[in-house]
């Protein structure tokens, strides 16, 4: 039987040391995935390293490059940060689709990312927004695009002793807009059958100058579909452009059949949701002009 230990270090260095000391140690932020996995027997960590006592790990900060969201910041706190909500409503909404209010009062977007589920709601929105994550480890800190962290369901590029300390979002571009939608059978409490996020920028005439489309639950990791974004750039998001974009999204999908939905449905919905998020994001560019 494993000997479980609980630690609540006060510094990042101490946390790194504790994680390095025990290969089966797991960092704990919100715990809404970790504790469920422990209970189900899927994982049996030797130690739990609670990150919440580390200064700066909880809360949203304004930084020169935009926003820094501490790894232990619960999803509901994102909604309460008016500037973040105004800048990245799609990201904040995506984070606030996870589970219930009870779950979102604990769950974090860093945890959502590190859990490396292809169906994670916040990840397509973060990828579309061009978010990065700052990773602390034995060799200090490194910053990578969030899309580079998960590599397969349940697996990430985090090395020994490494953990995510914060997620960074750029400032909102002028005339930028973002959005995220997911398809679930119920209205709440489900894991996404498909999710789609976008962040785009229009010029003063309504022509698209930049667009990123990311889809979830249609491949082993969240996909950034560059061809889909490219299909919108230079257009006024007319019907033809949307159709080309949706086709590119569908072409990129390689989903599986599982208990949550059949592959064909997932592919079809990825296209539908991508169209819908682009329309919502485009409306939001007007609001923030």
């Amino acid at each position, binding site marked *: 039987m494993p000997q479980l230990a609980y630690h609540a270090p006060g510094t990042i260095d101490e946390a790194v040391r504790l994680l390095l000391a025990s290969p089966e140690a797991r960092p704990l932020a919100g715990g809404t995935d970790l504790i469920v996995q422990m209970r*189900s027997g899927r994982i049996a960590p030797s130690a739990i390293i609670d990150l919440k006592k580390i200064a700066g790990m909880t809360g949203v900060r304004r930084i020169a490059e935009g926003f820094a969201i501490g790894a232990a910041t619960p999803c509901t706190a994102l909604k309460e940060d008016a500037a973040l909500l105004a800048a990245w409503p799609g990201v904040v909404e995506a984070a606030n689709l996870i589970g219930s209010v009870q779950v979102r009062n604990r769950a974090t977007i860093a945890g959502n990312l590190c859990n490396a589920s292809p169906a994670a709601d916040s990840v397509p929105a973060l990828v579309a927004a061009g978010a990065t994550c700052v990773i602390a480890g034995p060799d200090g800190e490194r910053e990578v695009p969030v899309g580079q962290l998960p590599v397969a369901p349940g697996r990430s590029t985090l090395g020994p002793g490494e953990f995510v300390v914060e997620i960074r979002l750029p400032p909102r571009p002028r005339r930028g807009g973002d959005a995220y939608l997911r*398809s679930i059978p*119920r209205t*709440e*409490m489900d*894991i996404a059958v498909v999710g789609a996020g976008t962040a785009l920028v229009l010029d003063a005439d309504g022509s698209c100058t930049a667009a990123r489309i990311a889809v979830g639950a249609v491949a082993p990791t969240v996909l950034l579909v560059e061809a889909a974004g490219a299909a919108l750039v230079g257009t006024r998001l007319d019907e033809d452009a949307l159709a080309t974009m949706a086709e590119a999204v569908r072409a990129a999908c390689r989903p599986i059949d599982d*208990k*949550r939905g059949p592959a064909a*449905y997932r592919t079809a919905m990825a296209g539908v949701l991508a169209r819908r998020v682009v329309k919502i994001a485009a409306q939001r560019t007007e609001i923030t002009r």
Partner: protein
Amino acid sequence: MNAPQPQHAFRVVGTRPVRPDGVDKVTGKAIYGPDFVAPGMLYGAILRSPHAHARIRSIGTSKASALPGVKAVATGRDFPTIESLVMTVGESASDIVHVARNCLALDKVLYEGHAVAAVAATSQAAADAAIQAITVDYDVLPHVLGLEEAMREGAPLLHDDVFTKGVSPKPDKPSNASMKVVIERGDIDAALAGAAAVASGRYTMEPVHQGYIEPHGCVASWNADGQAQIWCSSQGAFAVRSQVASMLGIAQADLRVTPLEIGGGFGGKTAVYLEPVAMLLSRKAGRPVRLVMSRGDVFRATGPAPGAVIDVRLGADADGKLVGADIEFKYHGGAYPGLNAHSGVICSIGHYNVPNARLIGWEVLGNRPASKAYRAPGAPQVNFAVESAMDEIALQLGIDPIELRLRNAVRPGDPQPTGVPFGAIGYVECLEAAKAHRHWSAPLGPNQGRGLAGGFWGNYGGPSTAQVSITEDGSVTVTTGSPDIGGSRASMAMMAAETLQVPYEQVRVTIADTAAIGFSMVTGGSRVTFATGKAVIAAASQVVDTLKARAARIWGVEPGEVAWTDGEAVCSSGAKAGERMTLRQVAARAAHAGGPISAEAALNAAGWLPGFAVHICDVEADAETGHVRVLRYTAVQDVGRAIHPDYVEGQIQGGAVQGIGWALNETYVYNADGRLDNPGFLDYRMPVASDLPMIEAVMVEVPNPDHPYGVKGVGEVPIVPPLAAVANAVARAAGVRLRDLPLSPDRVYAALNAR
């Protein structure tokens, strides 16, 4: 419809007082199955099969037994040898040998999650660790899940001693088809050949779970002298007593079962799973043992309602009069026989007059948990097919769906499926109320559709015991043995108060243990307010007689000269004419004027009447995604008379929503290895609050003349119509008829795109 009945006809019946157990339940004080603690209690854990079907070669328990804190280990070998005995519990009948094998497997495991061994230890952590140390050597066998696959020649056979019941001559080969029920009348083939409209189709669904939020839990304590106690949440402490006593070979009087508060059951807590195992562990350890299921255990190992394959041909003449029904359904029995296929046959077209019919029901075993009762067990599945076919006939003939049903609805005096004439039933009144309801004529928007379905459930009466006592200060205690699963303490108190003509608050109700009150059948079959209510009223009536006699004795007059009026004794003639004595005054002197005042009624309640319901559902379908949203829902039901209308409405609303969940999202999903893929509330998708509109409950009161206050059972029929009501609404909103439940977005989308 008649004019509304004046309220003054009753003092208490029909009012909405606060339930007597309410404060305990809103403050967290109420003790449910997993909450009970006995002094010196050990914590139990159960090892369950990872395989859908396997022979157990051996079970190694020595390592587990040696772990620190472990006080007992039990396997199926610890059960005594017992003789086959079919016990009827609520709505299903099971062989007690099968019940024991289901509690702990003996030679074979028959489904993933089948209990194999159990441990009791000084902490939950120690018990959980110990079951991991048990080694089981399995010989994995091929498994079978599908109904028609299981009936095929050469299919993996679950039992070599189960032969198809209901077939004569008795088959000479064992079969997974454990039961066949047939009802035939008239000439079905000729009738359908001559019909103006025929709706035919195959309807399917996988099992669904009752979904009570409280997992099963119990504490058992078996002493060296052979006497034992069990504290558990169940729909019937007496059923726990009889099953456990039979399985363990002890006298029922040696086993005292105390009902704890029950956190939902819906039929699923009429079965025993943990209690016999906790008993075995307690006997070995010499201490009380608690066993509680995880949610995963509940999904994997406790009774779901059967999935089904249903073939229907329904025919009507040009006026919409039904001429024939040809129905054959196969229901999952799961690992052991015990489901009653009879109710599905009876309920299939029980609400219509159909001259020619061939109704065939099968129970088919497979490597799944044994099916158990779930609210109107067996009725919703076949009703889905029949009421969908009714909708198709309405569309084919261009007849309004309510009008079509009115032309065929059973009325008092019409023959029941068993041939006995119906009593004072209210299906027609329900249909008329639905027609008159503004929901039925409200406008619909684009992509919206309105579905309607009717439903029938037989209800039940049966044995119950109740005691009514007057305390020295004139307050009243009522004691029954019927677990209160949804507010029945209130209705018992109300009926007692009505009979005694005293205020509701003067009456308090206790649900007693099996040693403190005589037998009552389980809380199920929509029987408690009817049957246990009859016992309460009978006992209260005896108490009234006693009160009158005591007053007569105190006054020195003949008992016939005393009336009971407004909760007081009134002397009606003689020298004391006009004198009054309050209940409190009689009570204060009773003990020394004839003895304490208490009465018990033990009866087998007859005269129950079936339940009828008509549901109207509006949905909106998103044609791009296949998502269906229920916009508006109205459930009309003949409730006899509502004793406590809040809790009657609650039954209607709760049943409707369970049915909506069944229609839209709920389903068991097994993988290729026969393992349940969605054993939790995340992926077994029960409706959440944001999925639903308000559910309007319309109570139609056609009182039951065979109950003093007109009661009919109300709990079960509300789950019968929703499956078809939702599906019919989807058919009309989206223009596609789906015959496979659930109507998940991907299926609706696929159907829309297949047009």
